């Protein structure tokens, strides 16, 4: 429990430095805002299309695979810590787990979900 207090103090200090800089700028910095300056940067022209445009679903698929394979990595960590105690038996266990998810990766790869056509 005590180790986490150190992390908490580090968090407070880090947030203080970042916040302090922001506060310093808002106090010291000038505040002249007029319409043209406030428009989002469009290399000069004024924005016509509303900025919320639709994206291809590939970005969603990347995040999706990240979630599933992140869980796989999360299972691999405690196994790695106990690798020496679990020995051959634990190794076989983990290999079954990894092969099943490797088949998932192969399926995703061959199914073309990882293709970026641009």
């Amino acid at each position, binding site marked *: *429990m005590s180790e986490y207090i150190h992390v908490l103090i580090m968090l407070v200090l880090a947030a203080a430095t970042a916040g302090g800089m922001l506060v310093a700028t808002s106090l010291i910095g000038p505040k002249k805002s007029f319409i043209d300056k406030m428009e989002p940067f469009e290399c000069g022209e004024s924005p016509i299309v509303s900025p*919320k445009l639709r994206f291809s679903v590939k970005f969603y*698929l990347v995040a999706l695979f*990240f979630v599933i394979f992140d869980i796989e990595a999360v299972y691999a960590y*405690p196994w790695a810590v106990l690798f020496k105690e679990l020995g051959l038996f*634990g190794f076989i*266990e983990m290999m079954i787990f990894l092969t099943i998810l490797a088949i998932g990766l192969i399926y995703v790869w061959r199914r*073309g979900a990882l293709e970026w056509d641009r």
Partner: protein
Amino acid sequence: MQLLMFYLLGLGAVVAALIMVTNKRPVRAAMSLIATMSFLAGLYVLLDAHLIAALQLIVYAGAIMVLFLFVIMLLNIEEKEGRLAGSALLWQMIAIAVVGLVFVLMVSVVKLSDNVVPLGEAAALFGTTRAVGKMLFTEYLLPFEIASVLLLAAIVGAVILAKRRIDDSDQ
């Protein structure tokens, strides 16, 4: 010291949860859910559940909520502050009443069950990776293997539903 931390974290979690539930804007709701999960990670630390606290941050706050954020950005749902439809309002009144009842029941039950559990100092390696990992890989071997099949089913299901063009890749 622990009591102060508990009340701080608990209050933070409840307030963030309330913000999320009553929020109409999905991004704000997602951010308050991330805040709730981080407060819960703090609570797990209070409960000496070190591995679970770290996993809560990695899995929930770091992976699932990124997926939510991607969907919100991808679908760019503009926040309509629409008034609730008439029937929906009635429906929600019933819902709040029902859930209020469930909550009162739960709290009353929880209040009564404190004789069951002794209060004790945690064992030395209580919540650490080594202890939880040993149980996971020796005693709970079967759920561990079922989890891999579950993840595979999730991936197959998610791809077949979300991928834009399914058929072009076979030919």
